[in-house]
């Protein structure tokens, strides 16, 4: 009975398979995941819980912290929104239209994935500084980009763009042309076809791209700090405030902000998963 009993209890967790190596691969995966990701993140949560509710709310209700969180989330939302819209247009153009240099442009979309954030940060700062290539003409119109929220917004658009493009692109590729053709045979104009037939199935991907771009923007540090100027209450984002608190050896302060940001990360992940499972149920694909 021992053999059968054992295999039965095991099969509840894992379906039996002829392929070997599960215990080793699964064990290693869990151990490594635990050591590198889960235990360190657990340490953060533990530290935060030792502050207690009072301590935590004390950290967060600080005016400067609130302002930094507002700036981070507000600008990230705006940047993700712009990326979602332009990401859709760019993805559509890249998939559907042919123009010289299309392949090059296609590769360039991934640049923010590949370019180190510090490099992007100083490049954007140089471009949008009052004497920079773009900063100068903007200044002539009375618009100041560097060392203002606008500068942060620009940096956040830069880092989030590939997420927005790359999540909708594969779905545009997979759109069944017959869907568009049948819509045309039924008398729909091209605009009606795009709005009523093409766009609705893309919505989950657009939302996912938005959420990914948002999550990335909220946590972004390297590309922002150079262009932001980091003026408290004006252009100071939450991640830089964590670094400042650490430099002041104010670990409680840093932990408090970090826990809020981590909670937002989890919430974003949850939202993405919900969108995808909703989409899978509704349309049968992600």
């Amino acid at each position, binding site marked *: 009975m021992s053999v059968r009993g054992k295999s039965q209890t095991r099969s*509840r*967790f*894992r379906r039996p*398979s002829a*392929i*070997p*190596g599960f215990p080793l*691969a699964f064990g*290693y*995966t869990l151990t*490594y995941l635990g050591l590198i*990701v889960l*235990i*360190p993140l657990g*340490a*953060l949560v*533990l*530290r935060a819980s030792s502050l207690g509710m009072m301590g935590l709310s004390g950290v967060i209700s600080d005016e400067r912290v609130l302002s930094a969180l507002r700036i981070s989330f507000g600008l990230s939302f705006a940047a993700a929104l712009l990326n979602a819209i*332009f990401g859709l*247009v*760019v993805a*559509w*153009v890249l998939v*559907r*239209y042919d123009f010289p240099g299309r*392949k090059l442009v296609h*590769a*360039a*979309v991934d640049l923010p994935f*590949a*370019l*180190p*954030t*510090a*490099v992007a*940060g*100083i*490049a*954007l*700062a140089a471009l949008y500084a009052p004497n*920079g*290539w*773009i900063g100068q003409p903007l200044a002539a119109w009375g618009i100041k980009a560097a060392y203002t929220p606008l500068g942060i917004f620009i940096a956040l658009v*830069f880092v989030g763009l*590939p997420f927005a493009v790359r999540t909708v*692109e594969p779905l545009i590729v997979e759109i069944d042309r017959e869907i568009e*053709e049948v819509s*045309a045979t039924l008398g729909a104009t*091209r605009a009606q076809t795009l709005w009523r037939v093409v766009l609705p199935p893309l919505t989950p991907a657009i939302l996912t791209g938005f959420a990914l771009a948002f*999550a990335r923007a909220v*946590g972004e*540090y390297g590309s922002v700090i150079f262009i932001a100027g980091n003026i408290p209450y004006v252009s100071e984002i939450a*991640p830089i405030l*964590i*670094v400042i608190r*650490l430099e002041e050896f104010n*670990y409680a302060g840093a932990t408090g902000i970090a826990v809020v*940001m981590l909670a937002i990360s989890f919430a*974003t*992940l949850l939202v993405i998963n919900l969108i995808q499972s909703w989409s899978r149920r509704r349309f049968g694909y992600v």
Partner: protein
Amino acid sequence: MSEAPKPHRPTTEARWVRVTTTLVSLVFLGLFLVLPLIAVFVEAFRSGVGAYFASFQDPDALAAIRLTLMVAAIAVPLNLVFGIAASWAIAKFHFKGKSLLITLIDLPFSVSPVVAGLVFILLFGAQGLLGPWLRAHDVEIIFALPGIVLATVFVTFPFVARELIPLMQDQGTADEEAALSLGASGFKAFWTVTLPNVRWALLYGVLLCNARAMGEFGAVAVVSGHIRGETNTMPLHVEILYNEYNFVAAFAVASLLALLALLTLAAKSFLEWRYGDAIAARAAH
């Protein structure tokens, strides 16, 4: 001239719409992506070629380059091994909680790099959970190489795994079962069947992992302590030079990182173009 113009294909937009959206996209991408890249190189060569190369005579710059290479050389293989193990367990077997595991593996992508650095300070720093024990045993993690490696491993954690998992899931287990039925051992089946099936996706994941490992800034900035010549990676060195208003040197070092990014993109595009089918049945990003 009397003939009416042929209507355009019913599944595409009017010409003016195509032209406008294409131009808008190109201007948008040019402004946000291409211009910053050009700026890096223009600023780096602002004071001439001589000044550019002089930037690399600085021993601190050379130390930063060495450190960056070393960190990547440790972090990338670690995540490579993890990626293979995780994708083997997830793609070749059915077990409960699989989607939770995948979500957890993706977790580091949605954690701010600064928070990633912070968690290791809270764990290993002077006031951290293990801080007193580490000091008693004379082990340095924070403000030293191990801390930098740990932070880098954390932020580059999912890269290889998330390239491999969807591909190996699509490929199923038929090839491995065939190999096993022909008498191959599990390891042999992996080495002769599974690995060749995923080798381009593996390379693809390693490329992306490496680019991020060499370029990571936020997480490393928090744990490094910015000790010149010792715990400064290239991105940190760029920051220091920039903050010292040594723009030419800052952009010179930055141009090396930009070059790395361009090479990565070129290799990535080549892999997608040449081995597109072998990389992902479902697109990865």
